[in-house]
């Protein structure tokens, strides 16, 4: 691969927000906005959108991420049938339905793609955001797909993994978009009740209502190198407070220093890291203690004898006596 001589200005090295899109070059070539290395589309795909020269992480579509994370690239979609509507008849510079149509024309159906998959042989459910679809903004469909992904994780008794990349709530759905933040919290509470882990991978950028809801509540939280992670972006802060922000403000590495993420993980290593995490978290099925055994352990030998003599006692009643039945209010 022929490379241009690398010329890096200090501005670029310090550049806070990596460019959203790789510069368009003739043919299939792309150039890295940080080190200006050129590479082919095949090379780009092989490195899952990471610059081989400097490690810069380009934005990556949700489907490409799922293909990369899933064993054998195999995953089953969840909630694909859900599509956006225009509840507010919203018009800014362009009517909302037109924005949806042009976003859909780029190949995705919404800003969140969910699937059931295995990583290193461990079953899990993944909910992956796609910045390419209206800036990864969270509207009603994102909220409902996230909820269905969480439901599926509860059904399967497996972890939920999310990769976030979003400008925040979708303006065009107004207050209904805001409410999706609360809706995502409800889903996390269902996972809490089911005792299932929630793993977050923060990709560039994770801002606004997504960072202020499910993205910041991971049991384990990874971030991709150089990802901007903030509730208010640097531009808004500088405009509002006239503060001059440090060049690395809100970036993953600094968020690690400030204690907001657990680890900065290179995208190319993500499947292996997640696989190892899932192996650690995997729980063998817990044996259900017998009533007689429990009573005997409590020293109630007489009651234990009665319990042994009542094999016809229904499982349901036994559970109720032991308080082990399905939780009320749970799924």
């Amino acid at each position: 691969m022929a490379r241009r001589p690398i010329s890096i200005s200090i501005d670029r090295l310090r550049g806070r927000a990596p460019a959203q899109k790789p510069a368009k070059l003739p043919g299939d070539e792309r150039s890295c906005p940080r080190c200006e290395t050129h590479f082919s589309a095949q090379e780009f795909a092989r490195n899952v959108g990471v610059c081989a020269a400097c490690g810069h992480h380009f934005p990556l579509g949700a489907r490409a991420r799922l293909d990369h994370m899933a064993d054998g690239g195999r995953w089953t979609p969840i909630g694909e049938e859900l599509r956006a509507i225009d509840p507010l008849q919203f018009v800014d510079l362009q009517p909302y339905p037109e924005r949806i149509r042009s976003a859909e024309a780029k190949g995705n159906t919404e800003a969140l793609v969910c699937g059931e998959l295995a990583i290193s042989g461990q079953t899990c459910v993944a909910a992956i955001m796609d910045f390419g679809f209206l800036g990864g903004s969270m509207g009603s469909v994102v909220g409902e797909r996230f909820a269905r992904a969480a439901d599926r994780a509860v059904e399967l008794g497996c972890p939920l993994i999310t990769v976030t990349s979003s400008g925040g709530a979708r303006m065009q759905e107004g207050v209904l978009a805001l409410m999706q933040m609360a809706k995502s919290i409800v889903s996390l509470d269902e996972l809490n009740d089911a005792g299932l882990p929630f793993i977050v991978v923060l990709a560039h950028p994770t801002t606004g209502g997504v960072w202020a809801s499910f993205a910041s509540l991971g049991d384990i939280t990874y971030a991709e190198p150089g990802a901007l992670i903030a509730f208010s972006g640097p531009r808004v802060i500088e405009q509002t407070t006239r503060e001059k922000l440090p060049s690395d403000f809100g970036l993953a590495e600094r968020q690690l220093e400030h204690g907001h993420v657990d680890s900065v993980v290179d995208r190319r290593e993500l499947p292996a890291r997640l696989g190892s995490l899932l192996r650690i978290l995997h729980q063998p099925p817990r044996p259900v203690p017998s009533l007689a055994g429990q009573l005997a352990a409590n020293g109630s030998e007489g009651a234990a004898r009665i319990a042994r003599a009542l094999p016809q006692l229904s499982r349901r009643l036994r559970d109720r006596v032991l308080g082990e039945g399905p939780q009320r209010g749970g799924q």
Partner: protein
Amino acid sequence: MSSPTRGPRFVRRITQRFAGPEVEGGDVWDAIQLARHQDRPYPLDYIGMLMPDFEEIHGDRLHGDDAAIVAGIGRYHDRPVAVIGHQKGRDAKDRAYRNFGMPGPEGYRKGMRLMELAAKMRLPFIALIDTPGAFPGADAEERGQGGAIARSMLTMLRLPAPTVAVVIGEGSSGGALALGVADRVVMLENSTYSVISPEGGAAILWRDAGKAKLAAQAFKPTAANCYRWGVADAVVPEPHGGAHTNPEEAARQLDVYLTRTLRELDALSVADRRRIRRDRFRRIGAQRELPPDSSALMAQSAESPSGGAA
């Protein structure tokens, strides 16, 4: 739809007058002005009028105290309750002290302290929402603004006792919703509830904060519209001309709603309340679903969305 969150008959009666057409155009901007009127009662005003005794708590026990949020316990109709609200100021000095009602993470963490107390003592939890949004500042970010808002929502969702959130002025962005995950969410007649303040929305959508009026008209964040969208369970009437014209009457109307709602919620078990609260938020949203046989087809994505004739 007969849902348990729709509330008692009197709520239907007072909200009936909002059955008219959607509020649009210039009326929306008027609503924004009313919701922001500087003489409009703020949480401490309502607390003063409704609770003979009130003990305010201060500080998040981590870093500092945030005056943009007031939180405390009060005596309400002869029982203890936990109350929280976004507090704005009336004169220049007070506005600066209250940071224009824009909380940082310390404010939400103070709120979570109150939620812990409310959970321990099974106190009803009342939130009065009135903020242009959480504060956008570098310090706030580094001390965990996003996480504080998220955790506040989760903590509130899990409270065992009845919870009621009342939008009393402007409710904008996650900074408002952080205190809004309640059994019942209601709005005063001239309040607004939106994904972002009109100025913020204009800066994002038109790249020009001066286009706030246009943004307001696009978001249509009035109480009547929010009731229609299922975001608000009821609209509490205000005195003619707005709450600022007669604060005592505004407080009395709020009192009527709160007492009846708390009585109704008291009758539910903890488990039922939590289930109903979850269902309430789980249902919110507007989307369409393709028939199952076409669901896997990407080709369907080219189809035009319904309701798209703008």
